[in-house]
């Protein structure tokens, strides 16, 4: 990416770091409990399960979300939505409004606490037929939906 292209991308809401942290912390809890059980069984020297597991747990649940967040970005153009994500596996997707079939705004229980929402646009393509943009303020997501919908309608005239 050129620097110029990078600057025009809008970042996600910072609260997204918190929500992904909570989500992955909860999601990985069974894994942590499992290693706790192994540890309690005293198969190897004390700490040989729980210490690496804890390190990995904190890395995935607390370091990774922040790092991932940095590589997310989006840009709403007049006729297209651009979504950029991924450091290791970089993906830069452009969806023209004229190709969008329908639009979802989704809010999970964690999202709702932080007033975030996920915008998903569906196209007819097979590659990337659904493209999602999480970590938006709920009001922003709704506004984006309306913009896209209005653009679709304008195209039809």
């Amino acid at each position, binding site marked *: 990416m050129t620097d110029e292209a990078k600057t025009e991308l809008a970042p996600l809401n910072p609260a997204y770091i918190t929500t992904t942290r909570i989500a992955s912390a909860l999601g990985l809890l069974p894994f942590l409990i499992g290693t706790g059980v192994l540890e309690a069984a005293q198969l190897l020297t004390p700490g040989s399960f729980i210490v690496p597991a804890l390190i990995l747990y904190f890395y995935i649940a607390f370091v990774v979300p922040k790092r991932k967040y940095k590589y997310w970005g989006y840009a709403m153009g007049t*006729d*297209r939505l651009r979504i950029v994500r991924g450091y*290791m*596996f*970089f*993906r*830069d*997707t*452009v*969806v*023209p*409004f*004229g*190709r*969008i*079939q*329908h*639009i*979802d*705004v*989704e*809010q*999970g*229980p964690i999202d*709702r606490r932080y007033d975030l929402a996920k915008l998903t646009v*569906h*196209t*007819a*393509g*097979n*590659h*990337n*037929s*659904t*493209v999602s943009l999480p970590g938006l303020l709920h*009001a922003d997501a*709704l*506004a984006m*939906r*309306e913009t896209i*919908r209005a653009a*679709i*309608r304008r*195209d*039809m*005239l």
Partner: protein
Amino acid sequence: MNTPEPQNPFASSEDERPISGATPHGVSSSLDTNGGGIEEDGQHLHISGLLVGFVTGLPQLVFPIIAAVFGIRASSNPILIPAIIAIVLFFSLFFRWLAWMRFRYHVGEHDIRIESGILSRNARSIPYERIQDVSIEQKPLARIMGLGEVKFETGGGDGDDAKLSFVSMADAENLRELVRARKSGVAVAVDQEEADEAVNAPPIFAMNGKRVFTLGLYSFSLVIFAILGGVAQQFDALLPFDLWDVGAWIGIAEERGITIDRISDIEMTARVIFAAIALVSLLFVGFASGVIRTTLKEHGFRLDRTDKGFRRRRGLLTLTDVVMPAHRVQAAVILTGPIRKRRGWHALKFVSLAQDSKQESNYVAAPFATLFEIWPIAAAASIEAPDEHVPFRKGDGRWWVPYLFFAALILSGPVISLGVFTEAALARTVNIYWLLVPWAFVLWFNRRNYRDAIDEGQLYVRRGWWQQQMKIAPQVKVQTVEIVQGPIARRQGLAALHFGIAGGTLEMIALPLATAQAIRDAVMEQVAAVDYSAINKMG
């Protein structure tokens, strides 16, 4: 397409007309088009639908009930089993009711909105312009209760379109009429098209018996032996002897006076003759099975270009007759192989959302034809042959290098473990790396056969050697464009481009990043200018 957007009082009055008499909250007078919050003024589905869903969902409850009963069978209390069943049924009904309570649909001025979800709320908006078809389905029970399931088909990717199950039939009909009215003009045109059909026009492509036979010869296949082997393996328990016991076979041969010694005694010429006979019969079976299979499928192949689109008829025993609207064609694929290419034979397939058959993802427009015959068919679907000025680009060679290293890495596993655990001589285990040579050949072939190109209107990608295929997609039919870079490609400054095509994929690989961005921008210029449903209506 030139109908003015219904901003007039008539339209808004129609909006406020409740679909059925009973709307719980009444439709709010101001339609919330400014995107403020989740509207609470939508309508619930028909309450009787709850019962229909509950009854049709009963079979799914059988297993939980059995599990629950099984879990408490030790208990001697006879009341417990009916109680468990009642609790399971109650919970099922309760959650269905909860889902029903939290499900609302709203018929707006520009779109239909559906809000659903007990805990996670999902608000879906389906613009009228995007609705291809409204289908109403009535299963027996729903029919008794006068209900219908309304599906709004948008032609979206994976069939997760919007569904209202269930509303009363009157509402269902109203909804369908409403959507048709919103899309005015389009539906009428389709009806007129259906009225007249050119029956006697010559086909744009047909195959006579000789052509089908030739295709059969190219479809040489020894699959029949695999099938026979599979059948034998399935039923060998029924056979009076053990099919796979080679020793027993030798025994039988020896009983008849044939021994290894005597086989060795047979003259050289005789052995050659035997081998030749075996080979010829093998070839015969291979060709014959190819011809038979092909004839069954392709006999009487005929492709017509009617007003409705492409109409294909073929088959010997099972006749099929499939119509595909020409505007549904999203891309063309031209296939050939190294042998049939020598005589100029190619196949043409169309990529589309393919609602005709589950087995064949693409619509076969011409299974066996020369390019001279193929280009006119493609042109009938508005896909042009690349002219000689189109600059076909080779892939950047560095793209394939990591694949060689991956393979080396994978082979290192056995090499190291052999060295460590069996203490085999390093010089010998290293011989495993010779496997990289054929792999390098494969990669080299892939690189040699890869070409991509872009011109004013279309995208081209050519790949493969044994199965050579050239995909041609009009740029306006592209749905999404994505630049993809893995960790290694990123360091090399290379990228792949994934184009979303309805019903298919198109991938350009081994592009320098700047080229990828340039292609993306060029395609987006074409794409963003045209609305998808608008091009789909151009015949």
